[in-house]
């Protein structure tokens, strides 16, 4: 084998090896898809969001291995906004006296907040690259959780994003400032 060919094959082997190592991170997107279909989300929406989630998860870890824990954390944090709105909606409305209140929208905000706090605390513990860790985890959590909050419409998704930002941003900013 000529040196140039060996160099190219070595590079290809390296990239394929990385892709193979990152590929299993596409599987959680299937679980998210199954959960989203179970709670009655439209298949086309589920397919597009979960395909994006799978591609993004694999691509991030393929690019840099240190994104792996952030992607895992994001997938874990996304469970709350994915599941909680459906669970709360199953219980119906909260009625006190003569007034009834729909809890789905606040649930998305609270679920996003929970996910954001989890991301923020774990990112603050990360050994290095806390900001990128937090951003990656928040992005993955947002994508995974968005499907659950679409039950409430775009307001639900926006509420979840707001909660996610509110939960994670202060911790990440504090870490950045304390390091700076």
């Amino acid at each position, binding site marked *: *084998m000529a040196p140039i060919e060996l160099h190219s094959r070595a590079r290809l082997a390296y990239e394929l*090896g990385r892709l193979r190592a990152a590929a299993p991170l596409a599987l959680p997107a299937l679980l998210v898809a199954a959960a989203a279909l179970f709670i009655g989300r439209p298949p086309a929406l589920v397919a597009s969001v979960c395909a994006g989630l799978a591609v993004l998860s694999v691509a991030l870890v393929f690019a840099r291995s240190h994104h792996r824990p952030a992607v895992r954390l994001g997938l874990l944090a996304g469970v709350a906004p994915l599941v909680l709105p459906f669970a709360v909606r199953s219980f119906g409305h909260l009625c006190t006296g003569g007034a009834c209140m729909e809890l789905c929208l606040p649930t998305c905000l609270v679920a996003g907040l929970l996910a954001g706090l989890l991301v923020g605390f774990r990112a603050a513990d990360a050994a290095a690259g806390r900001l990128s860790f937090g951003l990656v985890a928040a992005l993955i959590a947002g994508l995974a959780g968005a499907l659950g909050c679409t039950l409430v419409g775009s307001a639900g998704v926006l509420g979840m994003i707001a909660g996610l930002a509110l939960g994670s941003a202060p911790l990440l900013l504090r870490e950045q400032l304390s390091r700076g």
Partner: protein
Amino acid sequence: MEPTERRALQAALVRLAGGDRSAFPFVYAALWPLLLRFTARLLADRAEAEDAAQAALLKLFERASSIDPERDGVAFALGIAAYECRSIRARARRRGAQLPAEVLAGAAAKTATPEEAALAAELTAAAEEALGSLRPADIEVLRAATGADRRLPGTSPATFRKRLQRALERLRAVWRTRHGTD
């Protein structure tokens, strides 16, 4: 391989394992001649040695993501190369290929395999290199310790033991610095 080169290669392998593509050219340039030299020691046939080194290099890059930063990446690479050499020799045996005369002679005399001999030679060279970096007084004490009467002329047994202990500690420190292990 010089300890500084080895440390630089280890650092580049760790960066590559993390996905830093800029480390690739350095790792490739450092590993290819190293693997080729290693396989050439284990396999008598030059073409087979090159095949083994190429296969080892490709496998190493394929598994680069799984390199543990806490472990010696060079040893990992040489382990893959040794495995490739064993595979090539096994294939040659299955094909009934003629083994080189010195390998047959070695097998007939029940001596070490070429691979074991090469590893032993490499270990001896590393030990000599580590010994060579000690102070002359330490070398003298270590030489006396391997002698028949195990004593240094003009010193009491207690002093000799103390000097021997210190010389061994310094030797261990040198070995650890160069090879990262006791």
